[in-house]
C-alpha cells in the first residue's frame, strides 16, 4: 500500500493532507479511519507526519522516525484520558497530609474519585468515568486546570 493518486484510496496524498489540515483546524489529536482492510491512523503532537508506505496491517502515516515509536504510539493510542469537567485547582488528595486518591499502577473503576478540583472554595470530587489502570498523573498538585484539560491517563485494557 503506497500513497497514490487514486482518489478512492485512503492513502491518496491529497486526502491525507486534507485530513491533517482538518485535524489542525479542529484541534484533533488523533483520527483513526478504516476502509475495507486499509486503515489510516494519524496522531498529532510533537511528531510531524507525512505519507509513506507501510506494509503492516496497521498502517500509520508517519515521518522518518525510528521504528520503536510505532509500537509506543500503538500502545499510546489505546490510552484514555480523564479530562477536567471544570475550571479550578487540582488536588491529588483530600488534604495535605492524606494519601492521594490514586497513584500510577492503581486499578480503578469508573466511580472511583481520582482527584479534587477546587473552585470558589468548593471542593469537588471528580470521578474517573473510566475503568482500567492509572498510567500517569498529568497535572501537578495545586496546579490550575481549565475545562477539558487532561488530568489522568488510564489504560482501559490493563
Amino acid at each position, binding site marked *: 500500500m503506497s500513497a497514490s493518486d487514486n482518489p478512492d484510496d485512503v492513502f491518496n496524498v491529497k486526502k491525507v493532507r486534507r485530513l491533517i489540515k482538518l485535524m489542525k*483546524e479542529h484541534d484533533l489529536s488523533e483520527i483513526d479511519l478504516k476502509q475495507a482492510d486499509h486503515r489510516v491512523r494519524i496522531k498529532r503532537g510533537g511528531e510531524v507526519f507525512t505519507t509513506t508506505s507501510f506494509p503492516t496491517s496497521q498502517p500509520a502515516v508517519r515521518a522518518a522516525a525510528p521504528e520503536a515509536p510505532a509500537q509506543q504510539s500503538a500502545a499510546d493510542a489505546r490510552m484514555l484520558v480523564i479530562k477536567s469537567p471544570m*475550571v*479550578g*485547582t487540582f488536588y491529588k488528595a483530600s488534604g495535605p497530609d492524606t494519601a492521594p486518591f490514586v497513584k500510577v499502577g492503581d486499578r480503578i473503576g469508573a466511580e472511583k474519585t481520582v482527584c479534587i478540583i477546587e*473552585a*470558589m472554595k468548593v471542593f469537588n470530587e471528580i470521578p474517573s468515568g473510566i475503568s482500567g489502570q492509572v498510567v500517569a498523573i498529568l497535572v501537578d498538585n495545586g496546579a*490550575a486546570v481549565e475545562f*477539558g*484539560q487532561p488530568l489522568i491517563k488510564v489504560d482501559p485494557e490493563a
Partner: protein
Amino acid sequence: MFKRILIANRGEIALRVIRACRELGIETVAIFSEADRGAAYLELADEAICVGPPRAADSYLRIDRVISAAEIGNVQAIHPGYGFLSENSHFAEVCRSCDIGFIGPTPEAMERVGDKNSARSLAREAGVPTVPGSDGLVSNEQEAVKVARDVGYPVLLKATAGGGGKGMRVAANELALASAWQQASAEAQAAFGNPGIYIERYVERPRHVEIQILGDQHGTIVHLWERDCSTQRRHQKLIEESPSPRLPAETRKKMCEAAVRLAKAAGYYSAGTVEFIVDQQDNFFFIEVNARIQVEHPVSEMVTGIDLVKAQIRVAAGEKLGLTQKDIVARGHAIECRINAEDPAANFRPCPGRIERMIAPGGFGVRWDSHAATGYMVPPYYDSLVGKLIVHQPTRREAIDTMTRALKELRVEGIKTTVPIHLEVLANTAFHEAQVDTTFVERMLAK
C-alpha cells in the same frame, strides 16, 4: 489601577478589551470555549483558559466557570464585554461578593435600568419623555384591549425582559390585538423566562437615535453625543453613524441632557447607552437603556476622540473621569458597518465556516475592528459578527465615500457576508439624503 483583568467574552469585543488593557499596562486573561480554541486573538492575552464546550450556555454563560477562571487567573476585575453576562446583575453581584471588580455599573443600577418597564418609570420620574403606553405590565388580554384603546393604535407589545430587538409584536387594530397578545406572551416566556408584557404606541417610521453616556464613581456623568442606528433589519442594526443626520440641534441637546438626567436618577456609572425613537416631527421618546459597552461604541470614539473601553476600566478602578461636558466635542462624521457572516441572498441565513482569505481595508480615516483573519473558522454557536468597519471623515458625504471605498477593498472569501447590502444602502439616494427610518432597509430589500 488593576494589574490583571479577565475578559468574559469572545471575538471582536474580547480583542477590543485586550487592546485597551495592553495600552494601559494591564495583564489580560482571556476565556474561550472549545469552539474558539486556537483563535488568533487569544494569543494577544497573557493567559487563556478554556471554560467549556462550544455552546454559550455551557461556557461563556457559565458564571461558576468564569469566576473560577478569574480565581485561577489571579485577576482583580472582569470586563464582561457585550451580550453574554454583561447585563446579568446576578453575575455582577457574584463578582462583588467574590471581591472581583465588575467593569460596568453596579448590580442595582443595572437592575434599575435593565428591566424595560422599570426603566420607563424611572424615565418618567426624571422628566424624560416616554412613548405613550401602559403604566407598567399588562396582566391580561382584557387589560391589553383597554390600554390599547387609551394609547391609540397601532400599538407595540414588548417583553419587559426582552432586548436586542427581540420580543416585540405590532398590532394594527383591535382585531389583531388578541393574537398579538397571545404570541407576544408566549414568546416572552420562551425566550426570556418572563412573560411580562407592556404596551406602547407604535411610532411609525421612527428613527432610532441613542445617546452614549459615561459616568464615574465620583458622581460625574457626561454624554458623548448621539448615534443614529436607523439602518436596521428586523431590529438588528446594520449601520450606525454620528451625528444623526437631520436631527435639529435643539432636539439633540434635549436628548443628550435627558439621557444624562436618566443615568443620574438610576445611580449609573461606567459606559451605557440611552435609546430613543424620534418621530417624523422630531419628537423623541425614551425606549430603553443598554447598561453595557455596545457593539457600535467605536462610532462615538471616532467623533469624540475618547477611548470608551479605557474609560470604563479607569472608572471601575475608581479613577475620576477627568472630563466635563464642555470637553466633549464631536468632530466630523463617523459611520460603522457591521460585517456579519450572513447570506443576504438567502434571507440573511448565517454562514459559519472558514474564511479562506481575508484582506482588511485601510487608509486615512478607516478603522477595522475584527478578530478574524485568513484561515479563521467562524463558529456557528455565537453571533455572526465578523468585524466592524468604521470610517471617520470631516463630512457625511466623505464618510459615505470612504466607507464605500473601504467596503470594496475588504475581502472576506470563503463565506458570505453582508457587504453587498451595506454597499446597496450606501448607494441609495434615500440614505444620502438622510431620509432613513427603521423601516428603510426592509423597504429597500422588498423592491
